[in-house]
């Protein structure tokens, strides 16, 4: 029974397949195994709906994190499908060797394992360990090309990430120290479910310091400005599947951690309200990233900045709080993961067929590669928040609710959105339209993941199934 426990499977499948993939040398086989494993993980994650196991000292499944888990495993699966077709091309062009590929696939599963673990962890220490595991795995993936830029990006990621790790740990220790007098020593003082029940009695001052360190520590992973420095380079220099995973998943996982602690802090009456902090950081990230979009020359780096922008919006929404804004934040997060990974799928194939990531060298895609080009157009239009795609709905809710509650906050929000919109559109004009340039060679791409994601986003923009809505609303009410 326990072996068939989906929770165990969600963790065991990636771990086992990571070990397996480390042994297999044939990249075709390993990529297939990779897809298969990711699929099985997705299935077991879905089966979590059927019989969510009761929380214990280490693991917890509640309505909040099940959303994250399903999203995580789904995007993980689609990305593995995309990566299968992507990696083959990399091998042909000789940017990667089979040895590295073996490493790559193993690390992919390790990364998935780490993220799933972080999501199901009920123990804040365990959560910390898991997130760091995932981070280190991604560091190694980012540096996998061994080019100078890749190494530099990995190094930057590594150093800044380690500092983030340290902060997060310090925050965790502080939380433990706050809990210890009330809950008592030992493991119980790190179990989130216990903490959330007793947090009202904790010492507020300790919680405040703890939250600051946790916000900075995990916020580094979320990519909030000015802690974002690692993010653009890591996206730009790593393999594109990893960029997709970073934008689509890792940021969410870190955000999940922040949310958990925000709930802790919000439950303590004397402690500082976490909202204003998050709102401020979110707005800074949004506006900053929108301006940064204008001067980008590298297509992947540009979309990395757009990820920062959206993370800013999401953190802003959760900082605003309230059922409407929280709902919008969850929706925005889901839509952003789907859309951004879809964009990276498109960008991956584009940069492969054009042989460059320089925006200036890519023109008229809708002429040379209509499917890819229009896919990119659709993706960018979606990420820019145009209807009838999903992000418009969330941004609609965020902006309108903000303006009716805090009109002054809406001004930087709206102007940031507009500035970012202008930048994305300007680049899109050059990429997708105008006189074509570069190779017109046909590309053997797997369009399924990209258009699957975009279709989901489109449907969500028009029709949200009531169960999902009810679920999100419930989660939003949990978040408070």
């Amino acid at each position, binding site marked *: 029974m326990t072996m068939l426990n989906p929770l165990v499977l969600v963790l065991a499948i990636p771990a086992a397949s990571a070990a397996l993939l480390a042994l297999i040398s044939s990249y075709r086989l390993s990529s297939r195994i990779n897809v298969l494993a990711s699929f099985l993980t997705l299935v077991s994650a879905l089966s979590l709906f059927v019989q969510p196991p009761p929380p214990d000292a280490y693991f917890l499944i509640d309505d909040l994190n099940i959303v994250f888990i399903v999203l995580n495993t789904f995007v993980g699966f689609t990305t593995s499908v995309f990566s299968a077709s992507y990696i083959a091309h990399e091998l042909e062009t000789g940017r990667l060797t089979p040895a590295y590929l073996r490493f790559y696939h193993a690390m992919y599963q390790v990364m998935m394992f780490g993220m799933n673990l972080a999501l199901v962890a009920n123990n804040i220490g365990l959560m910390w360990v898991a997130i760091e595991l995932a981070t280190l795995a991604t560091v190694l993936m980012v540096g996998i090309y061994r080019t100078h830029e890749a190494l530099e990006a990995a190094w930057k990621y590594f150093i800044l990430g380690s500092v983030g790790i340290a902060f997060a740990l*310090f925050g965790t220790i502080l939380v433990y120290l706050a809990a210890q007098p009330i809950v008592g020593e030992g493991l119980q003082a790190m179990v989130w479910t216990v903490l959330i029940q007793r947090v009202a009695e904790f010492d507020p*001052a300790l919680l405040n310091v703890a939250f600051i360190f946790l916000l900075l520590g995990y916020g580094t992973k979320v990519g909030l400005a000015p802690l974002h420095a690692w993010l653009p380079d890591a996206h730009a220099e790593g393999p594109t599947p990893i960029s997709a995973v970073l934008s689509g998943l890792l940021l969410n996982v870190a955000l999940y951690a922040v949310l958990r602690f925000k709930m802790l802090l919000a439950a303590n009456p004397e402690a500082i309200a976490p909202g204003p902090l998050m709102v401020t950081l979110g707005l800074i990230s949004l506006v900053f990233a929108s301006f940064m979009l204008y001067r980008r020359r590298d297509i992947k780096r540009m979309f990395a900045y757009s990820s920062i922008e959206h993370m800013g919006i999401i953190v802003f929404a959760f900082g605003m709080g309230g059922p409407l804004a929280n709902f919008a934040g969850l929706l925005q997060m889901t839509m952003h993961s789907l859309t951004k990974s879809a964009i990276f799928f498109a960008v991956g194939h584009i940069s492969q067929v054009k042989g460059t990531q320089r925006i200036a060298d890519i023109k008229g895609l809708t002429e040379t590669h209509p499917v890819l080009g229009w896919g990119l157009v659709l993706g960018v239009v979606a990420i820019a928040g145009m209807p009838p795609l999903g992000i418009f709905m969330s941004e609609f809710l965020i902006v309108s609710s903000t303006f009716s509650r805090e009109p002054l906050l809406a001004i930087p929000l709206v102007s940031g959105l507009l500035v970012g919109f202008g930048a994305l559109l300007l680049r899109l004009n050059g990429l997708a339209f105008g006189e074509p340039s570069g190779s017109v060679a046909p590309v053997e791409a797997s369009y399924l993941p990209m258009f699957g994601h975009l279709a989901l986003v489109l449907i969500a923009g028009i029709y949200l199934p009531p169960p999902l809505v009810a679920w999100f609303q419930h989660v939003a009410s949990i978040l408070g």
Partner: protein
Amino acid sequence: MPNLALDIAHLLAGGLVLVSFMMLYQDRLPALINVFALHAILLAASVAWQADIQNEPYLYVTAIIALGFKGFVIPMTLRRMIVRLGIHREIETVVGIGPAMLAGIGLVALSMVVMLRVTAEADPLAREDLAFALSVLLLGLLMMVTRRNAVGQVIGFMSLENGLILAATGAKGMPLVVEISVAFSILIAFIVIGIFLFRIRERFDTVDVQALDRFRGDQR
């Protein structure tokens, strides 16, 4: 007896802060490495003492790791490395010693203020230790910020992490402490190897615009 225990704990923790200041004061790498070794040894002592007064034997493991790994292995490798990289007699602080020290004092004061707001019924030992740990952490960060080359930054990071270990061991009955310290040691090993493998001295850390155009993928 418990008072004495408290005082010794304070002494060691305060000593760590002091040594951190000494590290800020060093502007040559070899000396810096030596002082860091001292820092690690002090940490080991403090951890051992905590293990004794909390009579939690497994903290001794942490102490031994701190002593052996950070106290001897890392410094020795670093020494050999800087000789290899030929940066063993460079002055590589960004801001002068004086401002750095002043900033450090400010940071210590800040951490005191922040931590002493904690209400007293929190375990006093933990509370005082926490203040020191926070200051060690901030000083380490300050050092990372004020050192230009990678080795100096790594040392700064390690002292920061010492502060963490101090806090972790100070927190009574906190689980996973040993695992965490092991994990961090591995992390540091990674960093050091990274520096050594990629010959990172100031290359990734240059402010030279040509280098930027060549390295930072996104030309202006």
